[in-house]
């Protein structure tokens, strides 16, 4: 009986320790993923744009062309990274709350129904930066590590 009791206690104790380690690992993984996601892109606009920050909904509406003008009346010109970009996946999930595939579905439906066309797509951060520099109404996003000299970074609240 004593042996069984000891084994039971030991087993219970080790199970408890395992649970603690497992919980810690989950917390660490989620924390790392969250911090990676939080830092994976920067939203940028033209230097002449007066906007200082945007909510997720405002940014999403601009990229989905649900809002077509800035408060100044300038036409909004969103630009996306290509659909295979990891930065775009992160942007889609955090700003639109959907996967890039779901956003592509949205644009496919809009294209076939005549409701609208998808934003211009650029292959690299440099191309997005160039587009935003050239167009006063442009809004884009680049990887967090990209230099954003010559454009304005806009925090997403």
């Amino acid at each position, binding site marked *: 009986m004593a042996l069984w009791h000891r084994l039971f206690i030991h087993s219970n104790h080790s199970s408890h320790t395992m649970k603690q380690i497992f919980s810690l690992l989950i917390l660490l993984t989620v924390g790392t993923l969250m911090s990676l996601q939080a830092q994976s892109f920067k939203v940028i606009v033209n230097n002449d744009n007066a906007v200082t920050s945007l909510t997720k909904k405002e940014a999403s509406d601009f990229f989905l062309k649900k809002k077509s003008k800035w408060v100044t009346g300038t036409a909004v010109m969103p630009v996306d990274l290509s659909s295979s970009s990891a930065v775009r996946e992160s942007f889609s999930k955090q700003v639109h709350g959907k996967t890039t595939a779901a956003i592509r579905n949205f644009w496919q439906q809009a*294209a076939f129904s*005549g*409701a609208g*066309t998808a934003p*211009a797509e650029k292959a690299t951060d440099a191309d997005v930066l160039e587009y935003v520099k050239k167009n006063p109404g442009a809004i884009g996003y680049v990887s967090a590590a990209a230099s954003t000299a010559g454009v304005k970074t806009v925090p997403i609240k």
Partner: protein
Amino acid sequence: MYNTTTLSKKWMTLAVAAFCLTPAVAQETEWEAQTRITGYIATEANYFHDLEGTYKQYGVSLSEAGLLTSYQPTSNITIKGVFVYRPDLTIDQMINEANAEWKATSFLNVKVGRFLTPLSPMNTYYYAPVNNSATLPFVISHHEFFPLNMDAVSINGVVGENIRFDYDLFAGGYRNALWLKTGPVGLFGTEDEYYGALEKIGYKLNTSSANQALSFGGGAHAGVSFDEYFTIGANVMLSDKEKASTTFDNPYDPANPFIIDLDVNRIAYGLNFKAKYNNLQLLGEVWKNEMNFKNEAFNLDNDYNVNCSFIEVSNNFGKLIPYVRFEYHDAAGVEYNRYTTGINYKPIFETTLKLEYLYYQHDIKDINGFVASVIYSF
């Protein structure tokens, strides 16, 4: 003192300066011409239990293969072409859309060419990858209320952002405003004929003749949307002297029925609504078509009314969308209901799988069957 010539010269100079400066201002935004290509291939299998007549019980076919190209040379001009292969259609019928649209402002767009008739929002889900269901509601698949597309001019636009009003006025030529069969078994679009034959109705409108003649008509759509939560719209389609033909039983020679050409006048009108809460969506439409068929030589003057409605509920779980739809249909007294339920599974953007069960309810005979489709899109 300025004389009128001097004043005119000054105005001319100002006008020329304004004309020259306008492009300079426009050049602040450097528009890059955009070309987009997207397309899909849909393969469909149908199985129906115990169909009467010459229908096959099952079949598999390449049901649709579509290609959409659009070109935007400037920010406010879009040129669009959509080619969709469907079995048995002519090349002309496969050119679903070929149009140019000029957006003067958000509330004034002008579209010219061939485009989907902007009367039912469901008509914009005509293409397989963007339709939740593997089949289209009767309102769209039967073409009894309005044609799928028109060669026409449309003036349309949207006003407002959170509460949006939209309108569309259009007029032009069209074909295929009466029935067009689809699906490997050929039942979809011909249900009126199928049940008309079961009820031993002594005459039937010929589907093929109705798709040949070029008719003229026009219509209007007006709608209001409250953010993304609720949309309601009203629609009307009018046309004068469409051409069709009808077949009457010949009691003296049943093998050679009478075929009589008809002039068709119509007014079709309907309401559509959509309600959305999170990922749950409710769609519905109610339509009535008042048609009149005439042939003065045979002293024919018949009314032919069609009533149709549907309601569809779906929930988007991301990759999986289950849906349920109920439809009511009454074509000049040939009445039936259809219950549809299915799932749309899209594991990746490029691939969609649909599996659907259909149950037709009719006084003489019920039909049930399955539709499965695989769609590859890019």
